[in-house]
């Protein structure tokens, strides 16, 4: 009897096992083309041109990882992706894709289509790094001779990953872009990538930000403006503040290293018209002090702090004005801040936000605290006198 029960249980379990197990498939590692990065360009006749970097392992006495580039075309992105099979003879595998670079043209008109495929496809991850190629086809970036031995896409990925120490661009992964796209009162952004000529050829570099209005690319911010943008977004984790300082009749250049930053937005209402007050608290350390102001005393520190505050205020306000006037897209997320803190009032102005934003009054009040002067108290005085 017990035996019969066991057999029945087994007969029930086996069909369940084979039919309810979700989505996976048996595939051999060597039959897959591991796509490391994708560049999406506009092809002729309204098609997409996909340039894919395939990571390839070569075995030998020394095992190495190499990559090669394939191109494919298609009416849709997935069409182009599937075309890739006929080119390399393997099924393309996107679970390890780390970067997607789009051209300005695609960013301007077809970003929604790209995002749809990347979010919908079961293989692509949501933490793929997005880039916009600045001033060149996206494929040029992927096809550039790789400066390091690694796969270019992975180089790009680590490049943007370490960008936090520089704050000249901000990494945007697909989930972040999609989030910003659907959240009210904030426009998405994507770091810009370009090629930089050095003595031995070209290498990719990331600097600046591509701004989007809704899903359409509207223009670039350069590296300095991006830093100011990040200050407002409270996304500063490091980077430098460099500015000239007039101290005791002497002009000196100063570099301050940012250690901590805290930005707070505050909405003030004047007759149902919002105004934004931004408080920025930055902890910095003295990193470089050109010229010879002598001993670093309280007076110099006060002067440095004040100069830094003035400099920050001026810079950030300039960037905000630039974005308001030229691009009119709320990349800063001011509207989103109102939406989150005062959702009822946001409801009233939501429809008009695109007209309110360019005229929005924004006041920046930075507060800089100098933490230390690194490993030296004074400056190295020349001449030995």
């Amino acid at each position: 009897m017990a035996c019969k029960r066991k057999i029945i249980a087994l007969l029930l379990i086996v069909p369940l096992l084979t039919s309810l197990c979700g989505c996976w498939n048996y595939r051999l590692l060597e039959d897959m083309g591991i796509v490391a990065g994708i560049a999406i360009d506009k092809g002729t006749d309204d098609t997409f041109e996909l340039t894919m970097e395939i990571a390839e392992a070569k075995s030998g006495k020394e095992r190495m990882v190499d990559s090669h580039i394939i191109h494919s075309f298609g009416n849709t992105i997935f069409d182009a992706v599937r075309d890739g099979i006929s080119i390399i003879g393997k099924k393309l595998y996107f679970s390890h894709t780390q970067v997607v670079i789009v051209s300005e043209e695609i960013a301007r008109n077809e970003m929604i289509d790209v995002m749809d495929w990347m979010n919908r496809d079961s293989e692509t991850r949501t933490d793929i790094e997005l880039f916009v190629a600045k001033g060149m086809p996206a494929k040029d970036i992927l096809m550039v001779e790789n400066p390091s031995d690694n796969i270019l896409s992975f180089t790009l990925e680590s490049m943007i990953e370490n960008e936090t120490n520089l704050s000249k661009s901000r990494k945007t992964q697909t989930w972040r872009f999609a989030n910003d796209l659907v959240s009210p009162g904030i426009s998405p952004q994507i770091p810009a990538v370009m090629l930089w000529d050095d003595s031995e050829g070209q290498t990719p570099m990331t600097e600046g930000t591509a701004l989007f209005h809704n899903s359409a690319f509207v223009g670039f911010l350069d590296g300095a403006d991006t830093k100011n943008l990040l200050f407002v977004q409270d996304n500063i984790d490091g980077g430098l503040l460099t500015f000239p300082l007039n101290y005791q009749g002497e002009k000196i250049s100063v570099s301050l290293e940012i250690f901590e930053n805290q930005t707070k937005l505050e909405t003030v209402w004047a007759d149902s018209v919002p105004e934004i007050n931004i408080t920025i608290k930055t902890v910095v350390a003295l990193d470089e002090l050109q010229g010879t102001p002598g001993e670093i005393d309280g007076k110099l520190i006060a002067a440095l702090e004040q100069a830094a505050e003035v400099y920050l205020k001026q810079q950030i306000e300039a960037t905000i004005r630039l974005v308001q006037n030229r691009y009119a897209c709320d990349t800063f997320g001011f509207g989103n801040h109102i939406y989150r803190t005062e959702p009822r009032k946001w409801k009233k102005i939501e429809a008009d936000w695109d007209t309110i934003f360019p005229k929005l009054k924004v006041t920046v009040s930075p507060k800089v605290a100098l933490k230390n002067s690194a490993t030296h108290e004074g400056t190295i005085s020349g001449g030995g006198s």
Partner: protein
Amino acid sequence: MEENLAALRSVFESDDMIRFRMLENKSQRAIQGCVIYAEGMIDHQILDEYVIEQVISSDVPRYTRSDYLEELQKKALIASNLCLAQKLEKITDAVLVGNAVLLLDGSPKAIIIHCKNLKSRAVEEASSEQAVRGPRDGFTEQLLVNLSLIRRRVTSADLKFQYRYIGRVTKTKVCICYLKNIASDQIVKELEHRLNELDIDGIVDSGYIQEMIKDSPFSPFDTIGYSERPDSIVGKLLEGRVALVVDGSPFVLTVPFVFPELFQTPEDYYNNFIFASFNRLLRIFGAVLALFVPAIYVSLTNFHQELLPTPLLLSIAAGRYDVPFPTVIEAFLMLIVFEILREAGARMPTAIGQTVSIVGALVLGEAAVDAKFIAPSMIIIVALTGISALMNAKVQGAILVLRFVFLILAAFMGIYGVIFGALCLVTHLMSIRSFGVPYMLTEGSIRYEDIKDTLIRAPWWYMRLRPQLIASKNRTRMGRHAKKGT
């Protein structure tokens, strides 16, 4: 006597090992006798000096014929262990186990002289369970030596030894051994019952009994423990377990046997508890590795490539480049090769064993990778699996079988299959019992006191109580203020 002798001669017909020695008293010719013994199994000194000589030269006056036997026993025979017997079977048994039998003319009874002297191995270190720290003596093949090793450690009248004989042909002596004031009566009774039910021609090693009386006979997991170390057995007795010593086997069985015991070693209890706990966790981890590593590797590389970090994926892919077999086949081949090497190493004499391991491990492994037969990552997986399995001698067999089951599940269904298999395994482990005690602690049977000696080994002064499920009769192991110096 003549009749008896004839009967014995017919029993031992065509058995040249059995010797009949005729005797006659030098002063009284009427006193005649015969000593019967099995050659090579007796102590000749005892027999010659204290028995044969006494019978030949004694001047015990002869009263009546039947009386004489007892007179002789009391006054002449200088041996500590004598007994009278009348039944033929008893007499033949006595001869067969290595005692001498003295028959006297005119007496229906025989004197059995216990002068057994079987050659046996000396007490040596237990080779199957070596410990860096702890007693060095191990059980031997002789029941009495083994029992003495246990008794000398427990000076208590509560330690009971109960003999019985199993095996229709071999009549092997076994001994149930327990502490009467601790061990559960039901478990002792159950063991006795199962031994009584046993009807087999012979017992060569305790392994026979282990397999014959175990619960869940089809389970790959042992539900009866064994040990070659007297210290380990005494530890189990003190926990309330019952031991079964079998003559001819250095492996003593213990019941009940539960899952955590698979990972315990006697050394755990002698080392610092932190170190011992670490080692025990390591053993459990090793068992898990040995069970799942090949299966998980196969499912990750064949089904769930997205779960591997990109650099690892690329390096595995680089290793797999040009390798002809799918990962599953590779895994099977290499695991089988490993098991072949292990088995060959175990069967070989030690000197050749080393050659086998060198040829196997170095030459085969290295050459297989160089020839691109096998991916280097697979060698790592197989080596890790094989070595981890050897860490736990007592689950090795179960792990070996289940590993292949998991591998097949992984080959067809990936991680999903492995998880399914693991669920089945846990269900099975949860459902089996050993002598009425659940193999694994379940939600219903778990007690705080009982988990102190499972995953880790708590300090001795903290384990004040014995396991609830085994020694419910007498749980207090030590006084309330057992720990000195606090």
